[in-house]
């Protein structure tokens, strides 16, 4: 696990190099969530909307929208996909995203239209970590661990 300015950046995940992390699952689907620096920038998340299971999304469209008292934004999918599952616990308690962005507070699981194109717009490993560090610098983010 890399850490930069207090922000956790797991090296084994894939990233869109903006808000989103992705994890490949054994069944060919991908789990999506928001990164630690992104949840930090957003502040305490109070409201979440996640697209319903079965909805199809084109590349770049939002699978979820999140709102805090000081910020609102979307969670885009980096490839065209269908929503297979959504995290009902996050819908019930959006603040979970601030506490466990990489684990319990995953947002949705999606099935890509074309598995061959999935890696076109996402990165992993050291290349991703360096780009995320630049992201953190660009937006001047300092992460602090949240106790809940």
């Amino acid at each position, binding site marked *: 696990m890399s850490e930069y300015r207090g922000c956790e950046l797991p090296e084994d995940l894939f990233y869109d190099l903006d808000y989103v992390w992705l994890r490949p699952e054994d069944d060919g689907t991908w789990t999506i969530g928001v990164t630690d620096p992104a949840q930090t920038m957003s502040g305490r998340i109070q409201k979440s*909307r996640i697209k319903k299971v079965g909805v199809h999304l084109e590349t770049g469209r*939002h699978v979820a929208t999140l709102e805090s008292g000081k910020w*609102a934004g979307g969670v885009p999918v980096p490839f065209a996909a269908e929503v297979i599952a959504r995290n009902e616990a996050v819908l019930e308690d959006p603040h979970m995203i601030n506490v466990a962005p990489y684990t319990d507070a995953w947002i949705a699981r999606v099935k890509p239209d074309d598995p061959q194109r999935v890696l076109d717009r996402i990165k992993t490993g050291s290349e991703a970590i360096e780009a995320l560090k630049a992201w953190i610098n660009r937006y001047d983010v300092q992460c602090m661990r949240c106790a809940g």
Partner: protein
Amino acid sequence: MKSIDEIMRGDHERLDALLAASAQAIEGLRWEEGATLLAQFQHDIIENHIAVEESMLFPAFEAQEGGDANHPLTSLLRKGHKDLRVFFEEMAEAISARDTEEFEGLLSTVQAILKTHDAKEETELYPFLSKAFPENGEAFTQAMAALKRK
């Protein structure tokens, strides 16, 4: 002569009213009217307001701040513009699909984004530029008008 601050604040108010008018039409299930108003809003905010900011105001601000094109303020504002463009497309798609629930959800998010985004511009960017370029209000008004004619 109006300052950059006054001109851009006034444009925020005009755009907010246009978006609210579109939302009101959708609420009343006047889909065609809502779509027309949203298209007008989209055009004015992207082709005029955001275009002016990204082509004139942000570079002017960055030049005053030492020429840093990755300044945290303008980086954040540019990112806001990029995100908003996607939301505007999604709102137009929700209207095409006659999906009131989806439209209202997107509207809530977009209005929340605009509220914080506009507040940041109005407190950190526009006053700074008005102070740095007190004589440029007239030239700026003309540039805005030229973009509106396109």
